[in-house]
């Protein structure tokens, strides 16, 4: 009985994924109760931060979108987080701040703009601050 239930559940999830991926019905998933507020959609911005000179990934940088800190880069420079999507067609202000001081090198703050359509695959480059600068 349990196996049948599991198969059925799997089938339903697959069907849902097909709807989500291939149909032009993504809006079907973002609904709102008639007397409730809009739930919005949650986007999952992610990307990688590199040293602009060496091209090496940089760890320990805080990435902020629309003023909301979303994650700190790991040893491969990756970051990922969740964010409420608002105006989906507008560009997004992204800031990268060195929060671990000299531990992984000292980097200049980056303040840039990323198109909303590119939020899930960002490639950001930061300038290293040298001791003499």
């Amino acid at each position, binding site marked *: 009985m349990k196996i049948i239930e599991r198969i059925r559940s799997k089938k339903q999830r697959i069907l849902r994924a097909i709807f989500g991926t291939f149909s032009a019905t993504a809006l079907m998933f973002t609904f709102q*109760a008639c007397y409730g507020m809009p739930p919005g959609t949650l986007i999952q911005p992610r990307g990688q931060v590199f040293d602009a000179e060496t091209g090496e990934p940089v760890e320990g940088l805080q990435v902020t979108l629309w003023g909301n800190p979303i994650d700190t880069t790991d040893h491969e420079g990756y970051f990922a987080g969740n964010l409420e999507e608002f105006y989906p067609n507008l560009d997004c202000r992204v800031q990268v701040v060195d929060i671990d001081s000299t531990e992984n090198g000292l980097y200049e703050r980056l303040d840039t703009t990323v198109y909303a359509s590119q939020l899930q695959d960002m490639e950001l480059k930061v300038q290293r601050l040298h001791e003499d600068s």
Partner: protein
Amino acid sequence: MKTPKRAPFKRWLFRIFRKNETAIRELNYLFWECTWRCNLSCRHCGSDCQSEAHVPDMPFIDFLRALKPLEKRYPRDTVIIAITGGEPLLRKDLAACGKTLREHGFRWGIVTNGMLYDEARHRELVAAGLSSVTVSLDGLEETHNWLRGHPESYRRAMNALRLIAHTRGLNYDVVTCVHQRNIGELTQLKEELLANGIHNWRLFTIAPIGRASSNDTLQLTRPQLEEMLQFIAETRQEGRINITFSCEAYTGKYEEGTRDSYFFCRAGINIGSVLIDGSISACPNINRSFVQGNIYQDDLMEVWDNKFQVMRDREWMRCGPCAKCKDFKQCLGGAMHLHPTAGQPVLRCYKFS
């Protein structure tokens, strides 16, 4: 004006999608009726709340305790809590409640009349993780104030909307209950909203429930209802403001032109609620005879998993005007809140052929 063409294939696909969503029945939108107190006495109120409610506000800790099983079941940020009332801003602990909800992985928002929404409150709520707001605005100044029974209500709602609309990262919309007095003001109201930087607008009609059930002048006539749907369709084509018809009913030939998706009443399918006395139901405006349990006696997720059959299998709605309707498979009897009790026909049909 031409109505958009029906799209039979898309409608068929949609029915498969709806059937599948009903089978999955994921609870991802939960109302919390946190108070019955209200600072207005609107002529059309669906909840029949009062300035000094006889029912005390629900202690937040009781609601939080009820959320425990949800927290275990669903990943962070996938469930949104819609805090409603009464007027939720009357609760002084609202920001503290929101902050705790956020810490427990829930997104949250409020439905408000905007009377107490000033800049200080706005900052406090946004800092507590507020993600979405709906503000009611029921016409131009005179009409709105008449319906809401307060001379300041329009000005304050508009102030709230300006603050909200200019905050990045905050979802919002303004809802307008369309009735006989304001149907002629919609074009002017649209311009007013746009002039104030407000771009998300949702129109309702007033359901003959709660206080509105005893006031006939609030219900649109059939030609007025069609006029409203045409206004929505035309405004959507114009593309200056993001306008939709609420999910309160199936509209027949207007389905393609008045919403982003087809009519789908998700009460009991994705939408649940914890009402002021702990009752577990779907949308708070649904008749209380549909209550499925109570958080003070039952586990919320157990009730969600094992009850709500009356909302998931709607064959019982095939009665009254729906009995022989050929659009029933698409409509499924309209919204739950338009049924006084199980087995009773729908109070109003919105279908245009």
